[in-house]
């Protein structure tokens, strides 16, 4: 080894620090690392506080070193302590033993709930481990182990490092370490025994005491007393009568049609399996002294009920299957499907209308065949159309993606107005169970860009989610969507407003699909108003067929209805030209205007306001305050005006793009203004119609009052008179306002050219809806589903009141609102949100499970109930929870009962022979006696301070930890000795 220098060497002798062999290089590398990490010398920290191993932070530093070509990792694990005592580090205190040796005896942190195994076994606050770097590498042969250990020893000696240094030997899973700690004149050897089976003589305290004493080999009499800490751990797996309450929803009930549509608006919640799998009860005797208790192969004082300390931990099931999470995840998966609705349901429906009639059963069988169906595919609407209603009920239904009853239930849920005699007003919300408007929850759609929770869009999202999960998956989704689109068309054609949508123009804060539906509703509203405006027209009779039809049966997709839809379906394929049919309808309206145009022109020709004044005023809304017309003092009326065209965000984008494209030149600006002046012109015309003989000044006073400037002037007679005139900018010759005013004819709004072509817009929306693939649909509606899921989680949490969950939900909301606000959120981010929701669901399910198990609800005394609730919530959040009052406390007695019940059941269930064969006699002894099963693990820590190796050496800490489980027996000893004279 290096530095083998002799102090009295001659001047010419060379001191050799070169490292020749691999071994020497290895050692010097270890020394280097120890030096780098400043682990040299003795730094005495504070005595360890109780529980600091759990509450404190552990950190680790790692490096890699190699012995020849074998790589090791060297890692320093340490408890982060506040400002270590620097002075202590500088002066090495001769008579003080290293910190680690003192920690061996510290009893404040026995059995930490979560710690590195070496911490658990030896009570160390810091240590260095050298382990093979590769996971499957192992140091197996004894000579290699010894070589490593001696390297450690030399390195510690050379550097004066007082931190224990371990090497991991054998296979990694065995967690076998040997190590050493050196201090001035003292040394602790860390040794370990690891066996698969517990040798009989060591299954109890007395046997272990024997082995401890023999290892110490102390010849003093009487031997200083050995202090003992014991922990027995009992595992409860059988929860007996506390069966996991959550049952998967009964699908048959839905299919059977017994369940009301309401169920479709609800999301499922909870774990399908018990999210709490095991309860571990640790009974601890923290401080016993040898001789106080007896524990040998025939008798034991260690009754768990009598143990002074109880602590409990629960094992959570890994990724329990959670309904809500699954639900949302499955829905999200649709986003990745590429098929179009037609591909899923069958494409040829449009062309083959009628042709399939002959052999409907044959056609239906196609549906059940796997995906690539070559020739005729069949849509349900076609089937329904072609089949007689009876046939449909009897056999057709089973084979369509959606059971007829389910479909009807859903449609009734989505369109509750279909059930009532009279169609409801589109605006009225039918569900009263929703959060009050204006509440934070209700406005969540604003943040998520989803849709209000009482809207049709939102309900549709939930239904599709449900269908995807329980009723036919993707096919079911496609089917419902197709039905939905048909219903939309039906409503458009028959002037029935779509329920569950706020009236007014599309709400740009909602998802695009919602906007589209609102847009359609706007169109229907206008069409309806127009149709009602000319009741005389015979074509209006259609309006009345609906309610009767719907009233007949809850199934409002009656045959007539379906026929209608079918017709539409058939026409989709023919695309736009076929729509001209419906377009014609509106020419009547145009002819209407034509007539009026004549009227307008007439008066236009005459021009002057005086002649116009003789016209009959039309289209007045109400009087405008006390304003009067300037020329004749007649009251000024506000006219009925055309509403500006409603816009969805995509239309709006298109339009603003067009406007922007006009550029910033003067011509561009002019053109832009002209393009937007239609509304102004229309208003002017209405105004003129309502106020015959008016001037631009009159119009401006209503429309842009600040452009009419009034001044107080003193007239000839010396009176104060208000004199008004148009503002300078309105007086610019041939500015667009003047220009428009001059072209405007007195035509009331209802006879004007429509600013908004509802027919065209409605068809555009319907086409848009029809071409949405299920994946598009899922993307449109995912914000609604996430919105619903979060509301659900929130609702469930409010029942349990778990503060940590409240916090997480808040985070999820703010996170999702960021993600969902952008047009195409990344899948990864969406997945993350769904994952977070699932996690919260699992936490709540765990809380429920624990509450049920501990019967917090049944607890009658207020105080006890509170304590118990606190205890349960601690179980969720902390790795291990102390049971106040141990076995005698309230929680303790409940736990005791749980074990007793499990024991009773176990005693009845398995054949006795099995027990006898499997369980070692010692355990059987306990088994028979107690309310508890055999301990799953028994840990004992034996500690003492004795002089080693000779009676006259320094008295030093000795410690032995042992753990006994079914298939594991480990002794971890730390034996210190005085090295001064040896």
């Amino acid at each position, binding site marked *: 080894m290096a530095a083998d220098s002799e102090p009295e060497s001659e001047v010419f002798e060379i001191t050799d620090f070169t490292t020749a062999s691999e071994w020497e290089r290895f050692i010097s590398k270890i020394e280097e690392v120890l030096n780098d990490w400043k682990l040299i010398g003795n730094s005495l920290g504070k005595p360890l506080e109780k529980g600091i191993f759990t509450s404190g932070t552990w950190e680790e530093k790692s490096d890699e070193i190699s012995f020849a070509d074998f790589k090791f990792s060297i890692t320093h694990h340490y408890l982060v302590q506040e400002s270590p005592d620097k002075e202590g580090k500088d002066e090495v205190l001769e008579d003080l033993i290293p910190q680690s040796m003192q920690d061996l005896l510290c009893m404040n942190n026995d059995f930490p709930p979560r710690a590195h195994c070496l911490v658990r076994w030896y009570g160390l606050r810091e240590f260095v481990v050298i382990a093979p770097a590769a996971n499957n590498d192992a140091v197996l042969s004894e000579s290699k182990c010894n070589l490593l250990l001696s390297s450690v020893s030399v390195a510690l000696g050379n550097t004066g490092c007082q931190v224990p240094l371990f090497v991991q030997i054998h296979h990694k899973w065995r967690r076998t370490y040997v190590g050493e700690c050196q201090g001035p004149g003292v040394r602790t050897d860390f040794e370990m025994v690891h066996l698969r089976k517990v040798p009989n003589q060591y299954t109890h305290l007395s046997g272990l005491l024997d082995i401890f004493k023999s290892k110490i080999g102390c010849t003093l009499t009487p031997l200083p007393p050995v202090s003992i800490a014991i922990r027995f751990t009992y595992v409860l797996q059988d929860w007996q009568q506390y069966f996991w309450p959550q049952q998967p929803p009964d699908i048959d009930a839905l299919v059977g049609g017994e369940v009301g549509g309401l169920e479709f608006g609800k999301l499922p919640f909870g774990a399908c399996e018990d999210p709490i799998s095991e309860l571990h009860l640790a009974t601890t005797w923290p401080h016993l002294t040898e001789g106080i208790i007896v524990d040998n192969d025939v008798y034991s004082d260690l009754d768990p009920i009598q143990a002074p300390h109880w602590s409990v931990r629960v094992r959570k099931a890994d990724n329990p299957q959670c309904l809500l999470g699954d639900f949302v995840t499955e829905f999200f998966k649709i986003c990745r499907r590429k098929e179009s609705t037609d591909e899923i349901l069958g494409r040829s429906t449009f062309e083959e209308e009628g042709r399939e009639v002959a052999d409907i059963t044959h056609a239906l069988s196609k549906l059940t065949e796997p995906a690539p169906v070559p020739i005729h595919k069949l849509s349900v609407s076609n089937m329904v159309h072609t089949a007689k209603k009876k046939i449909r009920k009897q056999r057709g239904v089973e084979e369509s993606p959606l059971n007829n009853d389910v479909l009807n239930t859903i449609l009734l849920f989505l369109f509750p107005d279909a059930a009532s005699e009279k169609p409801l007003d589109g605006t009225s919300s039918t569900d009263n169970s929703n959060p009050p408007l204006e509440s934070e929850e209700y406005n969540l759609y604003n943040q998520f860009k989803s849709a209000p929770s009482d809207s049709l869009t939102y309900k549709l999202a939930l239904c599709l989610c449900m269908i995807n999960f329980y009723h036919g998956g993707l096919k079911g989704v496609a089917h419902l969507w197709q039905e939905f689109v048909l219903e939309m068309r039906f409503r458009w054609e028959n002037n029935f407003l779509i329920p569950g949508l706020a009236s007014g123009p599309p709400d740009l804060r909602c998802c695009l699909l919602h906007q589209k539906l609102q847009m359609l509703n706007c169109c229907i509203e206008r069409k309806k108003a127009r149709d009602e405006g000319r009741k005389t027209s015979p074509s209006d009779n259609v309006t009345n067929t609906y309610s009767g039809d719907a009233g007949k049966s809850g199934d409002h997709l009656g045959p007539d209805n379906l026929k209608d839809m079918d017709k539409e379906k058939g026409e989709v394929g023919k695309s736009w030209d076929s729509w001209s049919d419906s377009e014609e309808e509106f020419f009547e309206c145009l002819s209407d205007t034509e007539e009026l145009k004549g009227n307008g022109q007439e008066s236009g020709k005459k021009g002057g306001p005086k002649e116009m004044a003789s016209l009959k005023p039309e289209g007045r809304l109400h009087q405008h305050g006390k304003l009067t017309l300037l020329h004749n003092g007649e009251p000024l009326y506000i006219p009925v005006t055309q509403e500006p065209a409603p816009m969805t965000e995509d239309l709006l984008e298109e339009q603003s*793009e067009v406007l922007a494209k006009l550029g910033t030149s003067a011509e561009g600006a002019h053109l832009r203004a002209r393009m937007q002046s239609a509304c102004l012109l229309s208003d002017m015309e209405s105004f003129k119609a309502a106020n015959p003989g008016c001037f631009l000044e009159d119009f401006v006073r209503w429309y842009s009052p600040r*452009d009419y400037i009034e001044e107080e002037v003193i007239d000839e007679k010396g009176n104060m008179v208000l004199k008004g005139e148009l503002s300078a900018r309105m007086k610019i010759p041939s500015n667009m*306002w003047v220009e428009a005013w001059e072209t405007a004819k007195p035509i009331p709004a209802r006879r004007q050219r429509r600013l908004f072509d509802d027919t065209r817009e409605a068809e555009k929306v319907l086409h848009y809806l029809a071409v949405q693939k299920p994946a598009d649909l899922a993307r449109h509606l995912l914000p609604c589903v996430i919105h619903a899921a979060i509301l659900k989680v929130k609702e469930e949490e409010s029942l349990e009141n778990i503060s940590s969950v409240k916090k997480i939900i808040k985070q999820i909301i703010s996170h999702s609102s960021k993600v969902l606000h952008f047009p195409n959120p990344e899948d990864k981010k969406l997945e993350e949100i769904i994952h977070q929701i699932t996690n919260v669901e699992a936490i709540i399910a765990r809380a429920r499970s624990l509450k049920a198990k501990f019967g917090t609800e049944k607890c009658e005394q207020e105080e006890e109930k509170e304590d118990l609730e606190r205890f349960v919530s601690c179980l969720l959040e902390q790795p291990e929870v102390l049971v106040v009052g141990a076995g005698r406390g309230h929680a303790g007695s409940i736990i005791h009962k749980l074990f007793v019940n499990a024991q009773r059941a176990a005693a009845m269930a398995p054949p006795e022979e099995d027990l006898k064969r499997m369980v070692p006699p010692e355990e059987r002894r306990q088994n028979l006696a107690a309310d508890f099963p055999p301990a799953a693990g028994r840990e004992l820590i034996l500690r003492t301070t004795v002089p080693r190796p000779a009676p006259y050496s320094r008295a030093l800490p000795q410690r032995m930890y042992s753990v006994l489980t079914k298939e594991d027996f480990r002794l971890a000893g730390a034996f210190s000795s005085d090295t001064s004279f040896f």
Partner: protein
Amino acid sequence: MDEDVLTTLKILIIGESGVGKSSLLLRFTDDTFDPELAATIGVDFKVKTISVDGNKAKLAIWDTAGQERFRTLTPSYYRGAQGVILVYDVTRRDTFVKLDNWLNELETYCTRNDIVNMLVGNKIDKENREVDRNEGLKFARKHSMLFIEASAKTCDGVQCAFEELVEKIIQTPGLWESENQNKGVKLTHREEGQGGGACGGYCSVL
């Protein structure tokens, strides 16, 4: 010409009719003043590239009509704006009093809540001032807006207002970065060419 543009920002100018929205914009984009500027119909649109702290930003500025009747139309253009300039006329108290309505409107129609708002008191060149500077300041503070008084006629504060607004927007990275992926209003060019030079500038901003 757009190659070194860091980002395109959508700015909106709103306020009561006749407070000088279009004049402010015209002063800013063309550095001219026209006392007889026709009343805006619907929305108007101008583009200007400005440089703030060495970063070029292209501003797509939407000027809106202030008339009540147009208000059913214009809010559609609030979508996706990153900055809003709210203008009142310091010589007409009623235009100041109506500011609350405009803020409500913004709150209702803006699709995002981290938008930067600026309050501009216009026409300070006029003698008959009715709204004190302090009132404007107080209002702006209450609603966490930027505030400046300006005159489109004398050019006071106009340039400064726009620059300040843009700087603020750029300092709020979440506000404009995402807008690059977002399909906001697309202008004639797409600002994809973020060459080396621009990149340097990009880093210095953050």
